[in-house]
C-alpha cells in the first residue's frame, strides 16, 4: 500500500474533434482534501468521470491505492455529481439503500448506514417521504448522503457547495473535515477558487485540458509569493532607494497610504530601516497571492 490513494499518469481523453484531457498527471495523497481547480470546460468533469469509471481514458493509467483502477474499487469510492438529481417519486430511505446496494453494501448495512446518516443530517423524520416534497437544500443533503453512504476512502465532490445556503454549507464543511480526520481523501472539483484556499491541503489547476500546476497549497503559495510586501503607514513615504520597486500605491479604508513593494537583493530589516524614519508604520506583511491570482498568473 502506497501513500497515494490515486495516481493519474498521463491520462488523455479525446472526443470527436476535441481533446478533453491532455496527458494529465496527478498524485493524490491519502487523507487530505484535494482541490481540482479550473474554469468551466477545462476538463475537470472528464477527469472525474474517468476516476469514477463512467468513461475510460484513451491514454494513460489510473492507479487506485497502488492498483490499476477497476470495478472492484467502486465500493471504496463515493461520488457527488455536479448536476444533482434523485428519483422524485421514490422514498428517501429506498433511494439511499438502493444506491448503497449498487455500491456493494448488503441490505442490512445499507439500511443501517442510511439511518445513521439521516440522523446525522437531521433528516431522519422524513425518511419515508418522497424527494419531490423537499426543498432544494434538503435534496442536496440527501444527495450528499448518497455519496458517502458506502464509507468511501475516496470521496469525489463535484462543485459540492453549489446550491447550499450558508448554514448548510457550514454543516457540509464540518462533515468534510470530519471525514478527513477519519482518513478519507476528498477530491473536490470547483471553479470557485476561494473555497479551495480555506479547505484544501493540495490542489491542481486544470486549464484547457492540461494540468498546469499541482502540489501542496502552501508550497504553491510559497512559490508564487515573489517577494512582494504590503506596507501601510501614517504618512506618505518616498521609495527612492535602489532595490525597492514600488508596484502600486493605494489608500486604505481608514485613509492611510498603502503601498505594494517588491524588494531586490534587500533584506526585510534593511527595507524597514529605510522607511521607518519617514513615518509611523501601521502594517507590514508579506503579500500572499490568492489562488485566483495564481491561476491568472499561471494561465497568462
Amino acid at each position: 500500500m502506497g501513500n497515494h490513494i490515486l495516481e493519474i499518469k498521463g491520462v488523455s481523453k479525446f472526443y470527436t474533434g476535441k481533446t478533453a484531457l491532455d496527458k494529465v498527471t496527478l498524485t493524490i495523497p491519502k487523507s487530505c482534501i484535494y482541490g481540482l481547480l479550473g474554469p468551466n470546460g477545462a476538463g475537470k468533469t472528464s477527469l472525474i468521470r474517468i476516476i469514477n469509471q463512467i468513461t475510460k481514458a484513451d491514454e494513460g493509467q489510473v492507479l487506485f491505492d497502488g492498483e490499476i483502477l477497476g470495478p472492484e474499487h467502486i465500493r471504496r469510492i463515493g461520488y457527488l455529481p455536479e448536476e444533482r438529481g434523485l428519483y422524485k417519486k421514490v422514498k428517501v430511505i429506498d433511494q439511499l439503500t438502493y444506491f448503497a446496494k449498487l455500491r456493494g453494501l448488503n441490505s442490512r448495512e445499507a439500511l443501517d448506514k442510511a439511518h445513521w446518516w439521516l440522523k446525522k443530517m437531521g433528516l431522519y423524520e422524513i425518511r419515508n417521504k418522497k424527494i419531490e416534497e423537499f426543498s432544494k437544500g434538503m435534496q442536496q443533503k440527501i444527495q450528499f448522503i448518497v455519496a458517502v453512504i458506502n464509507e468511501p476512502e475516496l470521496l469525489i465532490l463535484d462543485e459540492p457547495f453549489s446550491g447550499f445556503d450558508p448554514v448548510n454549507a457550514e454543516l457540509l464543511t464540518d462533515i468534510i473535515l470530519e471525514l478527513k480526520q477519519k482518513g478519507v481523501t476528498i477530491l473536490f472539483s470547483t471553479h470557485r477558487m476561494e473555497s479551495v484556499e480555506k479547505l484544501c491541503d493540495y490542489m491542481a489547476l486544470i486549464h484547457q485540458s492540461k494540468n498546469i500546476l499541482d502540489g501542496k497549497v502552501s508550497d504553491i503559495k510559497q512559490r508564487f509569493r515573489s517577494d512582494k510586501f504590503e506596507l501601510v503607514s501614517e504618512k506618505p513615504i518616498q521609495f527612492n532607494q535602489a532595490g525597492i520597486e514600488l508596484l502600486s500605491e493605494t489608500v486604505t479604508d481608514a485613509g492611510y497610504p498603502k503601498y505594494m513593494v517588491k524588494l531586490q537583493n534587500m533584506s526585510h530589516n534593511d527595507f524597514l530601516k529605510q522607511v521607518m524614519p519617514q513615518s509611523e508604520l501601521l502594517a507590514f506583511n508579506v503579500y500572499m497571492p490568492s489562488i485566483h491570482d495564481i491561476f491568472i498568473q499561471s494561465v497568462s
Partner: protein
Amino acid sequence: MKNILLILKHEYITRVSKKSFIIMTLLGPLLIAAFYGVIFLISFSQLSKTESRTVLVYDPYQSLNNALPATKKAYKFAFISDSIDAKKEVADDENILLLRINNFKGDSMDLIGKKSLSITDRQELKELLSNHYFNSRLSQKGLSASMIDSMHQKIYMKDQLLSGQNSGTELKSGIGYIGAFIIYLFIFMYGVMIMRGVTEEKNNRIVEIIVSAVKPFELMMGKILGVAMVGLTQFLAWIILSGVFVTVLTVAIGAEQINAHDVQQISQNIPKQEAGNMSEVMELFQFQSLNLTKIVVGFVVFFFGGFLLYSSLFAAIGSAVDSDTETQQFMFPVSMPLILGLVIAQIAVIKDPNSSLAVWCSMIPLTSPVVMMVRLPFDVSWAEIALSATILFASFILVVWLAGKIYRIGILSYGQKASYKQIFKWLFNKS
C-alpha cells in the same frame, strides 16, 4: 448479473408500488368489464328492440302487382297513393320510410327517410324486396308457394380437418388476434415506460451515480427486465380480475336480459348460410380443435422476444434524447413495423394464415411477434416456430448490443440535440 438483479428489483418494486400502477391494475379490468357490459347491453337492447319501421310504398308503375312483402323482421309495409302526403309523415316520424319505385321492372327505387339507414338495415330491406320480387314472379309463372319455398336451398357446411376435428377457424382467428393484440399493446405501453424511465434518469443525472457503480449495459438490461416483470404482473392481475368481473357482470346482466325469446332472436339474426346449424355455433366454443400447448408456449416466447427486442430499441431512444418531446422522430421508425405487424395480422392472416406474406412476416423479427401469434392457432409446425423464435432472439441479441452502444454514450451526452447522424456515430464508436 448481481447488479442486473438489483436494478431489476428496484425498477419492479418502485413501479409496482406506485399509486398509478395500483389504480390502473384495479381499474383496467373494471374498464374491460364495463366495456363488455356496454356491448352486451347494446346488443341485447338492439335485439329486443320491438320498434319496427313502417315502409310506405309508392308504386305508380304497379311493379309489385298490388302484393306487398309480408311483414318480416323489423319492416312493415303499406301502399300509399300519394307520395306528397307521405313525405309529411316521414318528416314527423323517423321510423316511417318512403319507398318510391321508379319503374315497372322494380329495379330502381328511392328510399326516403328522415335519417339515413345503416348499411345492414338497408341490405336487409333490399334482400327482403328482391326476395319478394323473385317469389312473386315465380308464382306468376304458376309455381305453388311450397315449390318456391323448396327452391330456396339451405346449405349446412361443416368445416372439418382431415383429422376429423372441427377446424374452428373463427375461434382460432379470435384467439390469435387477441394474443397478438396483447403483445402489441404490451410492447407499446411498457416500451414507452422504459423510454421515459431512461430519459428521466438521464435528465436528473442519476445515471452518473449509477453508471459509476454498474455498467450501462447492466442498467439497461435491469431496467428492461424489471419493466417486463411489471407488465407481466399487470397483465396477470388483469386477466384474473377481468375474469372475475366479467363473470360477475355477465351473471348480473345476463340473468335479466337473456331469456328464451332473445336466444330465438339471436338465432334468427345469424345470417342465412349459418342459421339453423346451431351445432356449428356451439362447436365454436369447443377448444378441442386447438393445440393449447403450442399456443401458450408460443405466446410466452413471442411475447418476451418481441418485448425485449422492442424495449431495447425504446431504451436506446430514451438515452439519445433530452426530453420526451424529442422522442417523436425516433419513435416513428420503431413503431412502424409494430403497427404494420398488426395490420398484416388483420388482413393477410385472417384471410389466409399460410399466405406467403403472413409466413414471411412471421419470420421477420420486427413483425414476427404479432404476426406469428395470429398464425399460432392454425397449427404452425414446431420447426417454423423454432426458426422464427431463433431469428427473433438472435436479432434481440444483436439489437440489444447496438442499443447498448447508443445507450452508453447517449445517457452521458447532454445538451446536444439528438440526430440520426449523431446516433450512427455512436454506433460506430470503437471503444
